């Protein structure tokens, strides 16, 4: 394991009585792609701005390459940033925009021209140099912003919802492009989004923000398969929750409402908890239910045909609705009828027991 390039130690930012961010701890490896994911107002931008130097932390400290970042002003940090609305200078041509950081660093004219050309080529915009930003499409402007933030080989690249202004198709295309650039250049990236799919696709690791704090940090797989809190389970992907109290704790397994599941964190018997289970882990019994050691019964409320899969919404006796998602072939084998009784099964190893807050 290499030394982390960026270390956030207990940082926080308070605006008067409001904690925009607090107790943020994060180590970023060189070349890593780390995403801040969370709902609006959860402190993602605030944290990014503290790294960039636009706001000073009111707590904790930040180290870049082992040196405290605190005393270094924004313009000396050597951290590239892509702003949400790109912030391309409207009075300068595309080439002048990309050359700007080089010019500020006193790079000689000839060298500058060459580097700008390389950067423009890298983002697939060779030959667009003489245009003004407003003469480019949204996606092209986005690329110019990327080229400008990368051309000076910053130690760290920050992006605050860089794809927020683009339509879905272009977004998906740009996600791949940014990933390729990241791989090819080996840049270290901090990326902000509130789109969980985008986060899952792009990131090496994701930090899930909630109310100014990081709820959980992990690989996309960790977060999806082993959420540590109800918030994370709910925010990433779709999840069914069955609420009750913790019973029969035995090592890392316990029961909620008689259903077995894995304990992610220590929970005392009798405390309020939910059992979380993903829709694709619920099987309609009658089909292939081998290995299922838990079952739920209820009434079929809704059957939704999705082409390659089927979604069944089942109301349990207490009214809790759970969703089961099955592949088309599986669904055909277990015909369901609206209003009829159905039994669902799942493996206890697929279920998580999380504190209910």
């Amino acid at each position, binding site marked *: 394991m290499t030394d982390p390039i960026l270390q956030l130690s207990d940082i926080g930012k308070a605006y008067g009585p409001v904690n925009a961010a607090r107790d943020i701890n994060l180590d970023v490896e060189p070349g890593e792609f780390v995403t801040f994911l969370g709902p609006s107002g959860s402190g993602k931008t605030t944290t990014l701005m503290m790294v960039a130097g636009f706001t000073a932390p009111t707590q904790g400290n930040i180290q870049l390459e082992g040196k405290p970042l605190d005393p270094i*002003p924004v*313009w000396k940090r050597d951290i*590239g940033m892509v702003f949400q609305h790109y*912030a391309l*200078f*409207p*009075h*300068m041509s595309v080439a002048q925009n990309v050359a700007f950081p080089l010019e*500020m660093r006193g790079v000689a004219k000839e060298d500058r021209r060459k580097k700008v050309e390389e950067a423009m080529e890298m983002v697939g915009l060779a030959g667009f140099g003489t245009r003004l930003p407003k003469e480019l499409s949204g996606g092209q402007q986005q690329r110019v912003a990327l080229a400008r*933030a990368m051309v000076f080989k910053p130690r760290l690249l920050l992006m605050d919802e860089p794809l927020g202004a683009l339509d879905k198709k272009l977004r998906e295309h740009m996600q791949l492009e940014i990933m390729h650039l990241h791989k090819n250049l080996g840049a270290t990236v901090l990326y902000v989004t509130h789109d969980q799919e985008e986060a899952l696709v792009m990131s090496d690791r994701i930090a899930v923000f909630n109310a100014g704090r990081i709820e959980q940090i992990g690989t996309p797989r960790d977060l999806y398969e082993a959420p540590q809190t109800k918030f994370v389970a709910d925010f990433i992907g779709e999840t069914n929750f069955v609420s009750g109290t913790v019973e029969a704790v035995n090592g890392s397994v316990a029961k909620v409402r008689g259903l077995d599941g894995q304990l992610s964190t220590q929970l005392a018997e009798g405390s309020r908890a939910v059992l979380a289970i993903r829709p694709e882990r619920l099987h309609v019994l009658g089909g292939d239910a081998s290995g299922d050691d838990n079952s739920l019964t209820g009434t079929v409320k809704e059957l939704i045909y999705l082409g390659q899969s089927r979604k069944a919404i089942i109301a349990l006796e207490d009214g809790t609705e759970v969703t089961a998602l099955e592949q088309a072939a599986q669904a055909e084998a277990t015909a369901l009828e609206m209003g009829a009784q159905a039994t669902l099964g799942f493996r206890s190893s697929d279920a998580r027991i999380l504190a209910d807050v």
Partner: protein
Amino acid sequence: MFLKNRNIWLLAPAVLLIGICFLFPVSWLLQRSVSEPVWGLQNYITIFSKTIYLGVLWNTVAIAGVTTLLCALIGFPVAYSMAHSSPWIRKVLIFSVLIPFWTSILVRSFAWLVILQRGGILNDFLAGIGLIAEPLDLVYNRFGVLLGMVQVLLPFMVFPLFSVITRIDGSYFSAATNLGATPIRAFFRVYLPLCLPGLATGAMLVFIISLGYFITPALLGGRGDIMIAQLIFERIDEFGDWPLASALAIVLLVGTGLLFVLVNALIKIRGRGI
């Protein structure tokens, strides 16, 4: 936007007003300036060959130019603070910039006299606290003229600037510093160019209004600060010299018009980038 043809009569009052109050007198002036005492350009030749007239033309341009510059230097921070302060402070600032508009220009100019003349409030005060032995000449000279004009014309600079500055997104400046520009460089390379349309509009307004200024230089200036409007007045009032006065008026009009066209063209070229 174009009016539909059948609504064109809505323009009639404006056309009539401009025709009667502007085009007619101006053509009359133009005609007098080239027809008396005989047909020809003799009045214009006089203006552009005699040192006293050239001196007045130069005064006019110089005073208008310096007034514009001072208004820009003073107006920029005011407009900037207005755009970046809380609503309450903004109201106070707008109010203080507008106050001069609510008093007659005569009253204001006389007020400056009371404050600035040799036996005036300011000189008395400075002498009283022992800062000066002899009263300072603060009025009846270029200083007095500029002070009076800047005070009156400042709003014409502040408001166009304010309207442009409020629309400049703060992220441009942040982006510039993030990319390695010190705040000073970010200001000159990124922020100021984005303010240029407002600065150009304000400068043009102040300069053009200054060119035709009369009361303030007449009351607060000395013999060396005569501007073209005063000269026109003097030619008519003292000498009944309508032909030369007409020619001067036409020179002022054409000069202003040319400037207007020039600045507009410049803004268009730059505007490509804004």
